[in-house]
């Protein structure tokens, strides 16, 4: 099956004319049509346009860019001109929102010759850790369809794991790339805040949102990041920091690399197999010549409470634009403008979006601002300082991605705090704005009625340190076999 190729494998075959881009796209289409009914990873199919673009590439001949002629899936919050983009929310779905412009990320991929073949499922406006808040229903985990694929980029992670595409785009505000990648046994990268442009990607929390790739291996991630990273005049928060050659440093020696193991990530009651996976990863690094260092990041446990003040506060402000004027849901016979706003928003938004808008509205309201928002921003400074100090002693830090493997669909229904706790190992990096990789790190032992489920490993680096994070990830990947395992579908 051609859709199971990695980017580097496909590029080689395209260059040698052993396969055509059209055949590659068609293989992804066939795969989506045969299995997506049981996964619900792809919510908009853009097949005709993708085939037309592939034909153009085939006629011209693929370029030397490794993404030339490569099909991918984009999370349903990346704007592509003329293509319905709904953030998996009824507020944009009922009158199909078709953005008249491209996001910088999809535009850069297009310029490189990659083609989007469809949109992937996400929690509504990316608010969730399971893809269950999507107006299209949950995405199922390819390893066990009674379980979630994770979220919010669940459709992207499941799509890559199930070989529905060669790679996918996701976003990570509070773990939304790393957690689904970990649940689905694929690799995903949260980038440094400002490393990739947010232009044309629907915002959840503007000071925390990042754009990143989900792919089948580290080298593919490096190729995608190379293409999408860098300053963008359309996003003032992108950093004017040179983009290194990510692929060139992958194969460097690991000798002397200092790997930190933070004690705060090994908490009481955590899943023993998850802990074991991270401890064995440390040994892999040691065998490769790295040195291990016990470190402490004392404010780790405050990252998630911080996140659930800052994120909803920014949500309450960002969601104000969905008022049914410039785009969005339509209602019949409004009494007046206020009635229009209220009914559009109350009918259009789902309950997690409403919940976060209300948390933020309360946290920012008169009399509460100091206790919540300002205090969270100050604690954020302490979390950032923990990281800055740690990265003077070590080059990378390894940790679990999630406290357990993928949970059952519906497991956290009616308990938002339990859902928020899924992020506990994923929010400190967000508060510190640092890059973090999630890659296959093992499997749970199968038990009665529960198959072996993927366990993710997280590798983080200092701000703008994607190069070293990918280098360490590549060394681990080459020394292990986890990423080669595929779900049976």
């Amino acid at each position, binding site marked *: 099956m051609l859709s199971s190729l990695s980017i580097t494998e496909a590029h080689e075959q395209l260059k040698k004319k052993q396969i055509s881009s059209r055949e590659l796209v068609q293989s992804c289409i066939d795969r989506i049509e045969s299995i997506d009914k049981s996964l619900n990873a792809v919510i908009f199919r853009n097949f005709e346009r993708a085939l037309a673009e592939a034909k153009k590439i085939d006629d011209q001949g693929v370029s030397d860019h490794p993404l030339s002629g490569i099909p991918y899936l984009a999370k349903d919050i990346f704007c592509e001109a003329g293509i319905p983009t709904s953030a998996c929310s009824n507020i944009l779905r009922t009158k199909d929102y078709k953005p008249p412009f491209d996001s910088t990320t999809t535009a850069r991929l297009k310029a490189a010759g990659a083609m989007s073949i469809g949109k992937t499922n996400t929690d509504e406006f990316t608010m969730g850790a399971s893809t269950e808040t999507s107006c299209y229903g949950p995405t199922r985990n390819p390893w066990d369809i009674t379980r979630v694929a994770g979220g919010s980029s669940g459709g992207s992670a499941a799509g890559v794991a199930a070989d529905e595409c060669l790679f996918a785009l996701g976003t990570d505000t509070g773990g939304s790339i790393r957690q689904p990648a970990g649940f689905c046994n694929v690799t995903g990268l949260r980038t440094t805040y400002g490393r990739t442009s947010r232009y044309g990607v629907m915002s959840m929390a503007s000071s925390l949102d990042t754009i990143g790739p989900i792919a089948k291996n580290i080298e593919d991630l490096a190729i995608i990041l190379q293409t999408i990273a860098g300053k963008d005049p359309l996003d003032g928060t992108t950093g004017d920091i040179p983009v290194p050659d990510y692929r060139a440093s992958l194969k460097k020696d690991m000798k002397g690399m200092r790997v930190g193991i933070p004690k705060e990530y090994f908490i009481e009651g955590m899943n023993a197999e998850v802990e074991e996976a991270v401890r064995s990863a440390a040994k892999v690094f040691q065998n490769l010549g790295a040195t291990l260092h016990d470190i402490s990041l004392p404010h780790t446990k405050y990252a998630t409470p911080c996140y659930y003040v800052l994120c909803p506060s920014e949500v309450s402000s960002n969601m104000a634009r969905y008022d049914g004027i410039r785009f969005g849901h339509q209602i019949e016979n409004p009494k007046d403008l206020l009635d229009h706003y209220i009914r559009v928003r109350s009918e259009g938004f789902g309950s997690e979006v409403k919940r976060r808008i209300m948390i933020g509205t309360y946290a920012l309201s008169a009399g509460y601002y100091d206790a919540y928002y300002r205090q969270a921003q*100050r604690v954020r400074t302490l979390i950032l300082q923990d990281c800055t100090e740690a990265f003077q002693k070590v080059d990378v830090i390894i940790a679990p991605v999630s406290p357990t493997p993928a949970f059952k669909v519906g497991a956290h229904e009616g308990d938002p705090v339990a859902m928020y706790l899924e992020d506990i190992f994923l929010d400190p990096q967000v508060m510190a704005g640092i890059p973090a990789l999630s890659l296959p790190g093992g499997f749970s032992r199968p038990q009665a009625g529960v198959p072996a489920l993927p366990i993710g490993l997280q590798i983080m680096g200092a701000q703008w340190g994607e190069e070293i994070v990918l280098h360490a990830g590549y060394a681990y990947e080459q020394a292990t076999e986890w990423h080669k395992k595929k779900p049976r579908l």
Partner: protein
Amino acid sequence: MTTLSATQVRHIAKLARLEIGDEEVEKYAKELTAIFTYIEQLSEVDTSKVQATAQVTGTVNALREDIIHPSPIDREALLGTSPLPIVDDQIETPSAHG
């Protein structure tokens, strides 16, 4: 422990331009109470000497030359995404006064 009452939830919803049904008000009051009780642990941290972080990578000002670039998106395409009637290149909204 922070407790949010049904009256407070109604007030917040009104500020946020949301209409919450009576049966939902109780549910949200319970959930928001649980969430704020969880968040409250932030008050344990002494931050009296700590500055707030709003921009994590230290970007201060993003300035550019004041040059007008023509937009690649035309007016019609932007207006075309509105669900409301377009009159003389403007969106006609319901009246603010009923």
